[in-house]
């Protein structure tokens, strides 16, 4: 499954911040850990802030802090903020109404259903355990970034 760049950045940022909800991180710190564009990350953090998942703290020593419930927030909740995860395909195109279109739709729906069941069952708390496991297994490179990326790759492919 391929996630858009903004979605992946959002998941990395949420995991980084949720690892220690009392800690504040600047967007530059998060961008540096994961090697992502600061501008792109700022836009993502604004979206996460609007829905109350992160809190922006102003002033010297300001930054971002996780404000969600790591045991309840799922990967699907975060993904849905940035992209559609409903049925794929083009229901409006003429072929969708044919027997072939229905047959293809059934197979794609099976894949979508499985992906959604997976993403909706994995909470941020569970992801943080996976990140820790990746870290213990010695994920190379930027320690935080590599471990989170490998943990996400394990569940989203």
């Amino acid at each position, binding site marked *: 499954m391929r996630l858009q760049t903004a979605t992946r950045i959002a998941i990395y940022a949420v995991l980084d911040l949720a690892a220690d909800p009392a800690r504040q991180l600047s967007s530059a710190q998060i961008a540096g850990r994961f090697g992502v564009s600061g501008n792109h990350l700022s836009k993502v953090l604004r979206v996460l802030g609007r829905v109350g998942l992160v809190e922006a703290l102003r002033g010297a020593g300001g930054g971002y802090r996780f404000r969600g419930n790591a045991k309840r927030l*799922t990967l699907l909740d975060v993904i849905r903020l940035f992209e559609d995860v409903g049925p794929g395909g083009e229901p409006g195109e003429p072929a969708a109404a044919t027997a072939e279109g229905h047959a293809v739709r059934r197979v794609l729906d099976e894949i979508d*259903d*499985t992906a959604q*069941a*997976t993403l*909706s*069952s*994995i*909470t941020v*708390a*569970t992801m943080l*355990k996976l990140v820790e*496991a990746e870290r213990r297994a010695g994920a190379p490179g930027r320690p935080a970034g590599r471990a989170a990326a490998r943990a996400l790759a*394990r*569940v989203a492919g």
Partner: protein
Amino acid sequence: MMHQNPETTPDVRVRTARPGDLPTVVALDAETSGLEKAGYWKKRFAWYAGGHRDRFFLIAEAEGAPVGFIVGEVRAWEFGSPPSGWVFAISVKPQARLHGLGTVLLDALCARFRKAGVHQVRTMLARDAQLLMSFFRSQGMMAGPFIQLEKALEP
């Protein structure tokens, strides 16, 4: 036959099910699933709760009262799989949830699986059983190498 090797935590004790637990299990399952299946659980008790070496029916007790159960079995070579532990049912009283009882029950069952010589534990869930799936995920379980397929049988 009863096993006398209960695990204990400060608040919870896990023990092998006894015949007298049957009404509690039926009631607990009915409370959580919305369906009363007394006949089904009576047969499950006969199969799992007899103190077998590779079949387990465990009860979690808090303050002396049953608050949850787990059922599992070591099975071998079905679908070509080497011996592994299967979790067939787990349930915790709704009022007793969020205190780690599910984890205690699963850990106790896994300890028995290890003792029985297996190193893999698996289960199967409805795709929409999000709460239960989240629980097993939180315990480190991931999708395995099997895919379940089915079809409706036409008359």
